[in-house]
């Protein structure tokens, strides 16, 4: 068991380190002249060479690559990702400022998405009407096919401009949260629902379900007591994909609804080529991803006795 935990923690740390390294290579090594990235492309030719050199020195670009790398890695380990080029504030402060807003949106959207997905899977499994099953099962692939920016705009058009139920942008109060929340939840729910519909169907045809029928159990009893737990486990395996969808979705949702948050900050940072800020965000996202996968890896044995048995048997005596 201890070995399993160590292995998984080690792997998570490796992913974060490697993500840092990849980001460093992409943003500081690959560009022919990284200093250029720090200036507005339109003004690049009007900037005196002397200014460039000073900037290069400030950012350490004149040192050998390996030294730059070690220097940045060392600082990153102490939580220092440098200063944002645009605002001049520390990257970490800039991120923590907008993080809560995104967290609220993403967490609420995730909860809603999971509810929608389970609802769809349960209805599709429980119903005896083929047309209803077909209808419900068609929904997830529709949900992942409509681009987030389009569904956001449709929401705005209908519920804000036409009906006037919710404000069209901003981030004050729960009313401004509803539209972005639904916009973000729908595409996140799609893949989870697809997976759940499939695993509910597989499990509903499993041998132990036949045993339960033969015991005298009813359809709803079987779904609740037998199928649910076995079918829900696979949903954990796409936690990573779900997280990626949440991030990608919040970039666009926050842009469409003009909310502040990590997503919109990422877009601005990339538009303005704020390299240290972009690097900080990428590492933060990778670290969150690694953490989520680590939690999933640690939860699975708790939920599945077979996995638990395999691990306890593997423990050094």
């Amino acid at each position, binding site marked *: 068991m201890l070995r399993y935990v160590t292995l998984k923690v080690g792997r998570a740390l490796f992913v974060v380190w490697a993500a840092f390294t990849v980001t460093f290579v992409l943003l500081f090594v690959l560009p022919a002249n990284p200093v250029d990235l720090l200036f507005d492309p339109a003004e690049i030719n009007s900037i005196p060479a002397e200014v460039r050199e000073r900037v290069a020195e400030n950012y350490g670009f004149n040192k050998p690559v390996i030294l730059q790398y070690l220097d940045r890695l060392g600082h990153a380990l102490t939580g220092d990702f440098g200063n944002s080029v645009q605002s001049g504030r520390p990257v970490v402060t800039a991120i923590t400022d907008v993080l809560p807003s995104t967290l609220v949106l993403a967490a609420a959207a995730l909860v809603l998405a999971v509810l929608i997905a389970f609802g769809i899977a349960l209805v599709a499994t429980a119903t005896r009407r083929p047309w209803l099953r077909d209808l419900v099962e068609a929904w997830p692939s529709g949900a992942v096919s409509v681009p987030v920016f389009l569904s956001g705009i449709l929401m705005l058009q209908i519920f804000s401009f036409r009906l006037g139920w919710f404000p069209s942008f901003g981030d004050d109060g729960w009313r401004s949260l509803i539209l972005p929340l639904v916009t973000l939840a729908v595409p996140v729910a799609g893949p989870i629902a697809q997976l759940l519909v499939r695993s509910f169907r597989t499990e509903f045809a499993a041998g132990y379900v036949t045993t339960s*029928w033969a015991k*005298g159990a009813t359809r709803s009893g079987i779904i609740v007591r037998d199928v649910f737990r076995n079918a829900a486990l696979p949903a954990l395996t796409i936690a990573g994909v779900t997280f990626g969808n949440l991030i990608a979705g919040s970039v666009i949702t926050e842009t469409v609804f003009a909310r502040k948050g990590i997503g919109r900050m990422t877009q601005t940072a990339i538009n303005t080529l704020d390299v240290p800020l972009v690097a900080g965000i990428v590492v933060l996202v990778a670290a969150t991803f690694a953490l989520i996968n680590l939690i999933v890896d640690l939860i699975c044995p708790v939920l599945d006795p077979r996995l638990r*048995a395999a*691990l306890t048997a593997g423990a050094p005596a």
Partner: protein
Amino acid sequence: MTTSTDQLLTVGALAVDYRTGRQWTPAVRGVSLTVRAGEFVSLVGESGSGKTTLIQGALGLLPDAARITGGSIAYADVDVTGWNDRKMALVRGNYVGFVPQDPNTSLNPVKRIGTQVLEAVRFNRPRNDATAYREAALESLRTAGLTDAERVFHQYPHELSGGMKQRALIAIALAGQPRIIVADEPTSALDVTVQKRILDHLAGLRERLGIGILLVTHDLGVALERSDRILVMQSGEIVEEGPVAQVLAGATSDYTRRLLDAAPSRHAGRLQPRLPVRPAGPAGGPVLRADGLTRTYRLHGGRQLRALDDAGLIVRPGTTHAIVGESGAGKSTLAGILAGFHRPDTGTVHAGDHEITALGRKQLRDVRRDLQFVFQNPFTSLDPRFTVRRLIEEPLKAFGLPTGDRVGELLRAVALDEAFADRRPGQLSGGQRQRVAIARALALNPRIIVLDEAVSALDVSVQAQILQLLVDLQAERGLSYVFVTHDLGVVRLVADDVTVMKDGRVVETGPVGTVFREPAHDYTRQLLAAVPGAGLTPAGQV
């Protein structure tokens, strides 16, 4: 219609259709059967005969793709035809208990055994308190033959052996105190000695509790040995029905007679080739010899499993050497090493003059011309994208040999029409596929063929044909076989020598006649006693 309460289950002219694409194909065509109190009835049929569909229909457990098109089902004198799930739930468990086919998939993997039995108790008994339920569940586990019921109650399915899981399922079937138990191939996934214990137990339950038992099986031996009455099913119809003695004495249908002839246990001696035997070649030393083979697998976290422990055998030229044993005996590991797929930790294998355990990849390839392998499952051992022609040509091309008319010649050798050459495995039946696999193994004119459970996945009548083919080919080409199987009946049909294995060790080895007549080891005796139908005398057969 007689509605005596003595009849626990009455199926009248039941017809069930299956949907394939847009069409409905009949799977059960007007089948009638009855089971009375205290009666043991067996329903025998090969795969596709509709026997499982029939009992699914009787229990109201048909999949969505099937529908009942006619007939009636009655429990005691209650007609339940057309009842919905909710009403059937009152009958299932309560009046009829069901024991499913595969114990490994039929228990919920994330719930303790106790919980699963408790549910069955709660659904089917009048309101009661928790202690009484618990006591009833434990009692049910004990009745099913799990003496250590308290411990099993708290265990998960993966912590039990296959036999124990099947007993837990019997406990679940018994928990509602049913009047009749329907068992669908309850032992086909189990080892033969475990099968014997489970069947003994079912038969005992009938006597002790006075319940009726309907056993569905593909194994005529099991049916003849255990039941009062048997029904034989073919293509959705009952072709034979009657008390065991009557069927044994004179089966009325051709199909039943063929099944009887095909059952390995009904033959006393080795199959004879249908062709004149090729004059024996120079009787030299052994074609294949293995000594002191040991193979250890490392499991999770440093534990070890000794799959082979100082095993060895000698294959004489032109003969068949069978390796028998139950699951976990190490026979497949041994076969894999003999064929050069795996390397042993210690020990040697000699094929003729080559020590194949000492050869590199390249040299091993050359030995393959002499040493071929046939797999258990013909559904997975042929690449689904290849045509039969490409499959058979593959070894020839691998060695740069001319193909010429070899494909046609090999297909004729395994009694397949040449028209099969352009089909793909998906268009062939199991028996036809295994013939293609044998033709492919013959392509390089090998001297030795290792067959790993090569007939186990086939129906008994197909199995008989393939065994005859193997015997004929051996006589014609002077082949030597290593024949791995769990079925002692098959050993008697094809083998000259036999090696009995248990837990990775060789228990006993020698000529088949000697070992079967005077087994030197206890385990061999147990195995022989467990063969279904072993007690039945061959009725006027060779």
